[in-house]
């Protein structure tokens, strides 16, 4: 008897392609995405992008820059990348442009080595008198500044051996007693040896395991230039990230009404009136866009009331991003509903696509934590563009005009998806 029940269930499952897809394809797809993100596959671990400004240009600062450039986990940039390969190189970053770049989200961290840093680069015990290196960071990325600060200390310890030795001798001379002329001569000879670049390289080593991040002989002053005044830093990110994911679900569910109407004959009856298929789909798209936008409004109002999100000073940006996002997800839902033959099929396909888009596009965890290849893949999702836009509005406090890339992409995606949906919907027009 049990065998009969099992057999019936197997046959039913085999014929329900939607359930079959959800049972097997979705777990495999998800496992693969998580494996790529967290498993370090293909040696594509993300390098932290760091903007470096050397205002000092002293021997010590140049050594430090070289040390940082040798760090495999840092991608040091001293100037913005040119728009094309043939274009002339852009001017180097200054302290001001570096700060602006961090604010704009070009890099999570900038290091400014100030004038006269080389006069007194090391300050054991934090009692140095020279100017401190400025570490400017975007506080939405909590990992990058910690790593950069540690690697900065490591680079300082290993790339400026003669400075370290000189400082050590100075302190010995000062606090233990003066050196004899003979001792002083031998020490100067050793310092001269350390100043040779090849010896510095040997002292620096190449393996990260050889170096400790140190407790801070190099004075660093860290300052968050983005999000420093935010009361609840990650709320806007998660409101956008989770919001977009559920918008996609709602939009595909709502667009599925088309399938119900086709099944019941209502669609046929509507199309026998003055209403054309284009008018009908445009009407549905408008409704689904407004529904999605209303959902976003409710979610952000909730975030404002409960989690202190600052919605009311970002209304224009929110409205622009909200409407563009709602339009794109509504068109996405219309396309899925047009392609699928049944509600069950729509449920399976939309769940599969939306969960994959959401994980790759940053709705489940921030894209800056993902490998570079995955971050690029995220650009093929509505989620990524929407989240980037909302981040610009709520996190970086950028004006509406700075939203043009996200707005352009989302509107273009919406128009293209709707056009394809209209084409596919021809199957309902005539038999």
């Amino acid at each position, binding site marked *: 008897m049990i065998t009969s029940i099992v057999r019936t269930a197997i046959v039913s499952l085999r014929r329900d392609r939607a359930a079959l897809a959800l049972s097997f394809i979705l777990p495999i797809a998800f496992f693969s995405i998580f494996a790529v993100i967290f498993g370090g596959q293909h040696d594509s671990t993300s390098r932290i992008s760091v903007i470096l400004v050397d205002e000092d240009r002293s021997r010590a600062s140049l050594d430090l820059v070289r040390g940082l450039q040798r760090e495999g986990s840092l991608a040091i940039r001293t100037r913005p990348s040119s728009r094309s390969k043939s274009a002339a190189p852009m001017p180097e970053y200054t302290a001001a442009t570096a700060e602006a770049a961090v604010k704009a989200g070009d890099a999570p961290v900038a290091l400014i080595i100030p004038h006269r840093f080389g006069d007194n680069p090391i300050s054991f015990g934090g009692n140095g008198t020279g100017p401190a290196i400025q570490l400017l960071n975007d506080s939405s990325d909590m990992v990058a500044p910690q790593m950069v600060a540690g690697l900065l200390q490591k680079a300082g310890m290993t790339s400026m051996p003669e400075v370290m030795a000189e400082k050590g001798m100075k302190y010995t001379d000062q606090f233990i007693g003066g050196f004899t002329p003979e001792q002083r001569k031998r020490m100067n000879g050793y310092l001269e040896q350390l100043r040779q670049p090849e010896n510095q390289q040997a002292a620096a080593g190449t393996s990260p395991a050889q170096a400790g991040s140190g407790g801070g002989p190099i004075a660093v002053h860290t300052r968050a230039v983005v999000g420093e005044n935010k009361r609840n830093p990650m709320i806007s990110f998660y409101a956008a990230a989770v919001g977009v994911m559920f918008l996609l679900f709602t939009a595909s569910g709502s667009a599925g009404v088309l399938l119900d109407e086709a099944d019941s*004959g209502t669609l*046929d*009856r509507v*199309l*026998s*009136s*003055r*209403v054309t298929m284009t008018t009908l789909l445009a009407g549905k798209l408008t409704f689904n866009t407004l529904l999605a936008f209303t959902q976003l409004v409710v979610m952000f109002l909730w975030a404002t009331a409960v989690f202190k999100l600052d919605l009311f000073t970002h209304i224009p940006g929110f409205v622009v991003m909200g409407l563009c996002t709602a339009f794109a997800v509504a068109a996405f839902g219309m396309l899925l509903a047009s392609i699928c033959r049944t509600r069950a099929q729509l449920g399976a396909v939309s769940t599969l696509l939306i969960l994959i888009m959401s994980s790759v596009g940053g709705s489940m965890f921030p894209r800056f934590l993902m490998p570079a290849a995955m971050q690029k893949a995220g650009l093929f999702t509505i989620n990524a563009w929407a989240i980037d836009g909302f981040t610009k509005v709520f996190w970086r406090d950028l004006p509406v005009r700075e939203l043009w890339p996200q707005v352009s992409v989302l509107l273009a995606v919406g128009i293209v998806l709707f056009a394809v949906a209209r084409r596919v919907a021809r199957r309902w027009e*005539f*038999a």
Partner: protein
Amino acid sequence: MTVLSMSEAPPQSSSSLLESIPLEVVSLVKRFGQVTAVDGVSLELRGGECLGLLGPNGAGKSTLIRSIVGRVIPDAGRVAVFGSAAGSLDARSALGWVPQELALYPRLTCGENLAAFGRYHGLSGGKLAESVAWCLDWAALQDRAGDLAKNLSGGMKRRLNMAAGIIHRPRVVLMDEPTVGVDPQSRNRIFEMIEALRKEGAAIIYTTHYMEEAERLCDRVAIIDHGRIIAQGAHEELVRSVFAQRSQVLARIAGPPSEIDAWVERHAGRLVGETAEFTIENSTLIAGLLDDAAHSGLELVDVTMRQPNLESVFLHLTGRELRD
């Protein structure tokens, strides 16, 4: 019941349409793969006329109706509604379609459903409100105007389905089996609605596989089978043309099958299930028929004599029951 004449209804775009034939179908062919659903159908519907399209399930009635509405593109032939091609805006405005399915919005009330379909047909403001009120009255749903469509009884849903098809006061109404699945009481109510519609001047095509409905409601009947119209005319004409003054004798009989077959063949009858069917010129011939059965060793279970009807015509022409 409020009576608003269909002749007061809006929808003609030019006066020339008024002079045209309401509906003309010429040599219409529609194939789905290897299956020919409609096979060279021609018919004409005159103003104020009710034409019954009578045929069993799968005969091609719904495909023909959908071709007239413009929801099916024919492979050959043409359809003209007041001279306009099927599917054109003029044709769509002039046609009202009551599909076989309950094509309603279940979560909208009766009034909201009617208003929605009215707007889809271009009605608005006072005209829309007037039409909704008229349709609710016509369908005897005034007191259910605020009820959700999904909560109505089967018969009420059918009536609302019909009302949604004529909300824009079309001059040609296509009703595709509007009484499917309703109880006799609701069916009578629907008949009254159709008769009221006819009185107001609408031309109607009414598809059914119930002979009694066609006899009661229709001026003319077209019998359709395998996608072809095999006979058409007023139902008395049809019966007369097939049976003249003859009568039908239906006899249920028991006995050896070979004897039954031979007896039926001798009297030019035919077997339909367990019933032998004969056509006789006059009633005096019954005695000879029954005597022959007795001599052949057959036992009569019961014998009925009846005047031929549309079902007899259909059976005679196709060799099949109407409800096959």
